[in-house]
């Protein structure tokens, strides 16, 4: 870009970021390798585990879960929907996508819920973390692919990492919000009876914030599903790959099939988690 006409020269922001990333890759490669190994190990085994059972068994199990968590209608929907995906020949991709989503969401919860709790306890922490969450959510999701690839190369792992960054904020936010929304008088009562911070959290604040926290997890699941196609661009396997390949080849038929499979999965996950929240 030509900056000669400008009063101030262009800030070398891009260079700084690159230098920073270089610094991280040089000095923290051991850390990234470990993270990478762990995520890879977990996802691979999760996929293997799911592939252990024949599709029909898994379909029935999921249908039963949907029935138990919500109602028989959703159970029937699961039976038909998943049966259709299997029939179209996308069962292996479905399993990979479920693995990607489940692992990303679990890690988001493991990191996000404690951060949300921490935010709820201290105004200063909330003040620092809120803008970071805003940043994480508004930055176009594609941008996360770059550092994810730099640190974790290609495959499932960078997909999981990018998905986590993009989809974790609602869990953090709603955990914080849920805890802060607990009636002030209840907090006072808990303190007045001599609760420690931990007792107040586990006996009063978290149980009462539970449905809000669950709503956050539900949003995280939905966001991580929306990342599936983007994650496939860095080599994360699954239904996203089906769609992405169809886009690059302008193959409308397979594109529709892949998209429909994703929609079925999204509806199922959404209704099941919402149903579990109500119980």
């Amino acid at each position: 870009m030509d900056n000669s006409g400008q009063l101030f020269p262009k800030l070398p922001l891009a260079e700084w970021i690159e230098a920073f990333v270089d610094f991280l890759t040089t000095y923290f490669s051991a850390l990234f390798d470990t993270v990478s190994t762990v995520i890879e190990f977990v996802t691979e085994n999760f996929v293997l585990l799911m592939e252990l059972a024949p599709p029909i068994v898994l379909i029935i199990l999921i249908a039963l879960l949907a029935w138990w968590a919500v109602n028989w209608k959703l159970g029937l929907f699961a039976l038909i929907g998943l049966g259709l995906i299997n029939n179209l020949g996308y069962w292996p991709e479905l399993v990979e996508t479920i693995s990607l989503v489940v692992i990303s969401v679990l890690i988001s919860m493991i990191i996000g819920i404690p951060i949300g709790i921490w935010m709820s306890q201290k105004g200063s922490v909330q003040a620092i973390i809120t803008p970071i969450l805003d940043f994480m959510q508004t930055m176009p999701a594609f941008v996360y692919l770059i550092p994810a690839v730099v640190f974790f190369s290609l495959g499932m792992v960078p997909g999981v990492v990018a998905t986590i960054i993009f989809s974790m904020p609602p869990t953090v936010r709603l955990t914080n919000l849920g805890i802060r929304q607990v009636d002030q008088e209840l907090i006072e009562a808990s303190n007045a009876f001599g609760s420690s911070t931990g007792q107040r959290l586990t006996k009063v604040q978290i149980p009462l914030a539970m449905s809000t926290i669950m709503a956050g997890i539900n949003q995280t699941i939905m966001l991580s599903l929306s990342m599936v196609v983007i994650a496939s661009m860095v080599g994360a396997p699954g239904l996203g790959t089906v769609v992405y390949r169809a886009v690059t080849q302008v193959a409308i038929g397979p594109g529709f099939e892949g998209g429909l499979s994703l929609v079925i999965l999204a509806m199922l996950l959404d209704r099941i988690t919402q149903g579990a929240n109500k119980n």
Partner: protein
Amino acid sequence: MSTIKVDKLTKIFGRRPKQAVKYLEENKSKDEILELTGMTVGVNQASFEVQDGEVFVIMGLSGSGKSTLVRMLNRLIEPTSGDVWLGDENITEMNKEQLRDMRRKKMSMVFQNFALLPHKTIQKNAEYGLEIQGIDKEERAKKASEALELVGLGGYMDKYPSELSGGMQQRVGLARALANDPEILLMDEAFSALDPLIRKDMQDELMDLQQSVHKTIIFITHDLNEALRIGDRIALMKDGSIVQVGTAEEILMEPANDYVERFVEDVDLAKVLTAGHVMKRAESISVDRGANVALRLMKDSGVSTIYVVDKKKKLLGYVTADEAAKAAKEDKGLSEVLISDIPTVQTDTLLADAFEPMADDKAPLSVVDEDGRLVGIVVRGSVIGALAGNDDVLNGNGGVGING
């Protein structure tokens, strides 16, 4: 057991409370300080003592600082300055651990909107304080059910708070506080959220309960009638300061200033004062004495009615001067002429409840104790005087107290 001593307790809400404290010491008012510094005076140098087993009421209009004051006692709100002594321990200087221990064992609180945990059963709610202390399951279940029995909720243990009426929920709140067996109960507008009839029941029940548990109770209310009904002593607050501390009668009859006077002027004295407050000594005579003696006594003391009692001072009735004169002439005994079918009241009967018996009979109303012994009479003049706010007619001790 120990008394509570509050010494110059002050709370300023704002960023630089030191400055505001200085203004307070210069006797600047809450409004002036708000204007000068933008800070709110919550409580201004409150000092008072509460004795063991006393029901101490803190009363004032909304915003006068009652909640802030009571929350500084267990440090739900940190005082800006001043001390709270519990026996020889200074609560304001306790560290976190000591404070937690004090809250667990010595001071429990009951809240305006009950503050029950909606996700726990009544039983589990009542156990909360014990659970926090790490007391084992069996013992806390036992203590909590005892406390629930005490407040009359034995049969509701497995219900959830939302299934109970307001009055019942507050009983759970009370049971939860009592289950810890604390020395002190802090009750912040505990009955204010209840409708008036239930509120009155709860007041009565609290007083009954207090007869058996003997806690030191610090009770907050904005309702003067509630304060008068349940308080052994009352502290009146205005703009963060305590303007008067005294018994109900002291507050009513000797208001410390115009503010208190205005506060109490609407009180229905008939519902506060009792027969014990206004009764006088009765001229009485034993039934085995003659009519002539009775006549003589009446003449000497200038009354027209004399009360006849038996050997044990039990009231039998009265004799008027006319009747006594007739009896003396006809040589009859007092027992033959006395009027025995007369209305009586007790020392703790409210004046409001004494009007009707008083109207039934022209003679002064006789006041008897539980065994029917004559303790005094109530004449119309003193009742009217007392209701008009004339405290000369009142007895210092007020009989047995003024709770209805």
